[in-house]
């Protein structure tokens, strides 16, 4: 389960609307609490896929290291990531699964239809390694 405040939830949806028709991306920071990921803050990232930003995203590892460092100063760890699917359903794609490597983290996807955020879903990357990883639907608890 992913626990996130309404404020942070709205923020990641707004980010998708602002970058439309391109995909947005960012990091969820907080604490792992058993099977729950509790989000304390979100950090926007730039999408480095300038070659195909309408249907691909990539976060610069250097930007991630900075976000990770700043998070740790607040006692927060990386617990997941988010991105948007412009004019496409909020379901993970084969590309999303192939390029997901943070086992045990949440991957949040927001569909943005004609510039307006519609549904947002979250998936946990489960499995023991690259060979058996899966993106599994997870509940999002707001509050």
């Amino acid at each position: 389960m992913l626990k996130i405040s309404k404020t942070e939830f709205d923020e990641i949806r707004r980010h998708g609307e602002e970058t439309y028709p391109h995909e947005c991306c960012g990091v969820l920071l907080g604490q792992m609490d058993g099977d729950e990921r509790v989000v304390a803050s979100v950090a926007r990232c730039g999408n480095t896929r300038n070659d195909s930003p309408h249907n691909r995203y990539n976060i610069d590892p250097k930007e991630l290291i900075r976000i990770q460092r700043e998070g740790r100063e607040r006692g927060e760890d990386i617990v997941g990531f988010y991105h948007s699917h412009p004019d496409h359903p909020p379901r993970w794609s084969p590309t999303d699964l192939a390029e997901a490597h943070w086992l045990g983290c949440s991957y949040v996807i927001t569909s943005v239809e004609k510039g307006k955020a519609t549904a947002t879903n979250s998936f946990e990357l489960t499995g023991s390694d690259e060979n058996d990883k899966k993106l599994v639907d997870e509940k999002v608890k707001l509050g």
Partner: protein
Amino acid sequence: MTKIHIPTPLRQYAGKQADIAVKAGTVGEALSGLVSQHPDLRRHLYTDDGKLRSFVNVYLNDEDVRYLQKEATAVKDSDTISIVPSIAGGR
């Protein structure tokens, strides 16, 4: 000792530690020292033929070691190595 920062998914294979200190002269030695201490990490970092997995980024402080001298890059005790699996995807 050089500090290696472990990303959240890999901590379960590293004694649940966020940082691990190793004595090393190069990035390669540091990573070897890490997997010697925590053998379960090996399959997550390396392919069966011993190469770093393509999606595993290794940074020395704020620099990608691919653009330095890769695993031969020299390290000092004050350095921090970060292991950063890539984050990408799309519809």
